[in-house]
């Protein structure tokens, strides 16, 4: 293996120079930058550490696979800039899914100055498996032993000093969620960077495969591209890593490959031997440092799981949880929203009209109808969203998500998917964009594509907030049932679409379901608060930018060219669409509202508010809408609105994640047709039965 120090110094970096140890000239040029990577298995607290150090707001929650993209931030300390990279969690360096590949590529290609390996002290053995792999790469490593509190609760005894002595690496005990040990971690990172690594205990391949490995290293010597270490490449080939094997096949001459291939074929069993060897190494390293309690205790997690993962009770729990989320959101959020609408938005618009009575008509119209009526109206969704995000954040932080995924596994199989796909879909209730991104945790590319295709059918908060405003206007006390019905309908359509598409997309491929179930944690107010803050701020930003722009444009188009709604450009567009609307009894204003919801779902309300405010002289939606729509048309409209094509941000993310315009266009077309088909169907059914006409 290449000399470690040498490798670390050969990092092509203009940085480093000023922080280097005594060997180099110390030039005080500007603040110096160290690049530190946070790696570790999923759900060990990497993002928690990252957020603490950088003040940024990465997604944190208690389930594996939240971070799916690398994210950089700066921590300034003693005049040193530490550039920190938060990476997706990975169980090993044999990358199986996209987000794991991101982590591996970062460590190998970007050559961080120090790798901080975050480990969960409560499952130390498995966590150190990854360490045994990382130690084969040329970078100084610091072991951050996180979740010491959880280990204690579980009755595990972990001795950091003993572990440190065994490994020959600095080990820093931490409780990241309580901000304990983080300062020490930074100090240790700086020290390791300055002093360089010490005598690390590196795992060796097991006796029985040492010879083969040496033979392979010999065969590929000289053909391994930079920055890959030769013996690491040989090891990964022996482990059957597809990406690395492909890379080497392309670089070796056919004769060389022939030889390598023969060796690999002869040692196909090496995967288990190598992994077993690593676990033996871990055993040796932890023998003195770890005391495990006697088996046979029933933990709290086991007791809760008896119910939450039960095939029958678990399903009831899941339905109850979903029902409770929406019930809480609507019974508390909706009245506050209505209150804000009445006393803030309508009163505010009234006040602006009076105050600007002397100004040109368009100024007061723009402010009262365009800005306040449009974007301002959307801001009244805030209470609904905050409540929803708080409940979702609490569920995530407790550790319920993985249980929901487990319970749903049986149903996901109907779509050819499995429980893990349910994790990103669950996030979709908050917003579809992270749901589409989050599909990266699904290992098979085809299953990931299918997950992405059905994700927009999960009703997001923006859509449900529109329902929360409109449903009470038409259905009064029955609004909550309408909301639940719409959610159930969306999920039913999701299931049908998934079942219909799975042959086409998956082609009968079997997808393996392997998912860790984390221990339940006490919810952490700070974590939940941060996630609510981040998601809410995302919404406020959207209201202040894209929704504001759309509101103003809609307002302008609704008064141009003659200052009259009925002769406006927008009316012309709306009338063009109205034949489609007529099939479900909705007028052109509703069709325009639907159209603008493509930009952002909340625009449905913004647009209606702008349009109807213009004609209604300050009368709210609640007074005007019932004169335009029958309950049957209103229901049909809500159906279309909930199933309609995803918002622009989601479509863009789908394109990015699938890498295919074809599939993106397919999804948009499908949802367009589907939403109208179901909406019109509902309306026609109502006509037939004579309900709400």
């Amino acid at each position: 293996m290449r000399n470690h120090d040498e490798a670390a110094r050969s990092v092509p970096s203009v940085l480093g120079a000023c922080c280097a140890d005594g060997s180099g000239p110390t030039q005080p040029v500007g603040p110096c930058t160290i690049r530190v990577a946070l790696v570790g298995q999923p759900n060990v607290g990497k993002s928690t550490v990252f957020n603490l150090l950088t003040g940024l707001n990465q997604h944190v929650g208690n389930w594996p696979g939240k971070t799916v993209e690398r994210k950089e931030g700066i921590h300034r300390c003693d005049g040193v800039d530490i550039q920190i990279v938060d990476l997706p969690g990975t169980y090993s360096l044999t990358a199986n899914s996209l987000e794991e590949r991101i982590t591996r590529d970062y460590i190998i290609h970007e050559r961080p100055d120090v790798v901080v390996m975050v480990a969960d002290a409560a499952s130390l053995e498995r966590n150190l498996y990854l360490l045994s792999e990382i130690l084969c790469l040329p970078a100084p490593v610091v072991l951050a032993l996180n979740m010491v509190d959880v280990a204690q609760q579980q009755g595990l005894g972990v001795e950091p000093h003993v572990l440190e002595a065994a490994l020959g690496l600095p080990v820093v005990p931490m409780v990241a969620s309580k901000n304990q040990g983080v300062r020490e971690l930074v100090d240790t990172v700086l020290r390791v960077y300055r002093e360089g690594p010490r005598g690390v205990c590196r795992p060796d391949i097991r006796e029985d495969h040492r010879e083969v490995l040496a033979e392979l290293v010999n065969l590929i010597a000289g053909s391994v591209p930079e920055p890959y270490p030769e013996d690491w490449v040989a090891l990964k080939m022996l482990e059957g890593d597809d990406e690395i094997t492909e890379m080497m096949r392309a670089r070796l001459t056919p004769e060389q490959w022939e030889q390598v291939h023969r060796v690999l074929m002869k040692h196909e069993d090496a995967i288990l031997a190598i992994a077993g060897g690593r676990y033996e190494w871990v055993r040796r390293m932890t023998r003195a440092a770890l005391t495990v309690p006697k088996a046979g205790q029933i933990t709290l997690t086991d007791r809760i799981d008896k119910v939450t993962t039960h095939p029958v009770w678990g399903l009831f729990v899941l339905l109850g949880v979903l029902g409770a989320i929406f019930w809480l959101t609507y019974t508390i959020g909706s009245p506050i929203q209505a209150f804000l609408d009445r006393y803030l938005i309508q009163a505010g618009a009234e006040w602006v009209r009076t105050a600007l009575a002397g100004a040109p008509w368009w100024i007061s119209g723009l402010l009262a109808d365009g800005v306040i009526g449009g974007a301002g109206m959307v801001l009244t969704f805030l209470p609904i969203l905050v409540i929803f995000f708080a409940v979702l954040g609490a569920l995530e932080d407790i550790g319920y998500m993985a249980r929901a995924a487990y319970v749903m596994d049986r149903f996901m199989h109907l779509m050819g998917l499995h429980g893990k796909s349910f994790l990103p879909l669950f996030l979709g209730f908050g917003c579809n964009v992270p749901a589409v991104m989050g599909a990266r945790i699904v290992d098979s590319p085809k299953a990931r594509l299918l997950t992405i295709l059905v994700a927009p059918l999960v009703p997001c908060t923006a859509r449900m907030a529109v329902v929360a405003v409109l449903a009470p206007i038409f259905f009064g006390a029955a609004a909550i049932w309408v909301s639940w019905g719409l959610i159930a309908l969306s999920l039913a359509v999701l299931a049908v679409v998934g079942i219909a598409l799975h042959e086409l997309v998956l082609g009968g491929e079997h997808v393996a379901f392997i998912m860790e179930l984390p221990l339940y944690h006490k919810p952490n107010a700070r974590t939940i608060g941060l996630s609510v803050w981040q998601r809410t701020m995302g919404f406020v930003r959207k209201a202040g930018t894209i929704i504001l722009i759309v509101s103003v444009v809609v307002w302008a188009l609704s008064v141009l060219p003659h200052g009259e709604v009925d002769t406006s450009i927008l009316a012309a567009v709306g009338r063009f669409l109205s034949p489609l609307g007529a099939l479900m009894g909705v007028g052109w204003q509703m069709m325009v509202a639907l159209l603008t919801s493509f930009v952002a779902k909340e625009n449905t309300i913004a647009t209606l508010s702008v349009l109807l405010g213009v004609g209604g002289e300050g009368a709210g939606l609640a007074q005007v809408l019932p004169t335009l729509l029958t309950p049957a048309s209103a229901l049909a409209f809500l159906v279309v609105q909930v199933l309609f094509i995803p918002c622009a941000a989601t479509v863009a993310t789908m394109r990015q994640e699938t890498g295919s315009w074809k599939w993106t266009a397919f999804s948009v077309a499908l949802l367009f047709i589907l939403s109208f088909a179901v909406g019109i169907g509902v309306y026609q059914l109502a006509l037939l039965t004579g309900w709400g006409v």
Partner: protein
Amino acid sequence: MHAKKHFHLWEHFRRRERKAATDGRAVTLGALPAGKTATVAELQGGRGFTTRMAALGFTPGAQVTMIQNFGRGPVIVMVRGTRIALGRGEAEHVWISANGGEAHEES
């Protein structure tokens, strides 16, 4: 929970295990009743499956305890101190052998 039923399943499992030893067949993790512990003998499946399972700790010789197994649908097992959910198909690809003598019972 259903101690009696589990006992029955366990007996059944042991019998199959013994039979397997004589006629060369073995038993998979999917047949392990809840509460019982066994030893991983072999993984069977594609390379992707094997590397993933091995990294999670399912290597020959590792102890696995079944936490939940209803005979259909996914299972939950405890391996190397962590809970892992496995699809039925995945559990059927892990071959196990009963722990020597009286298996120590967990949970």
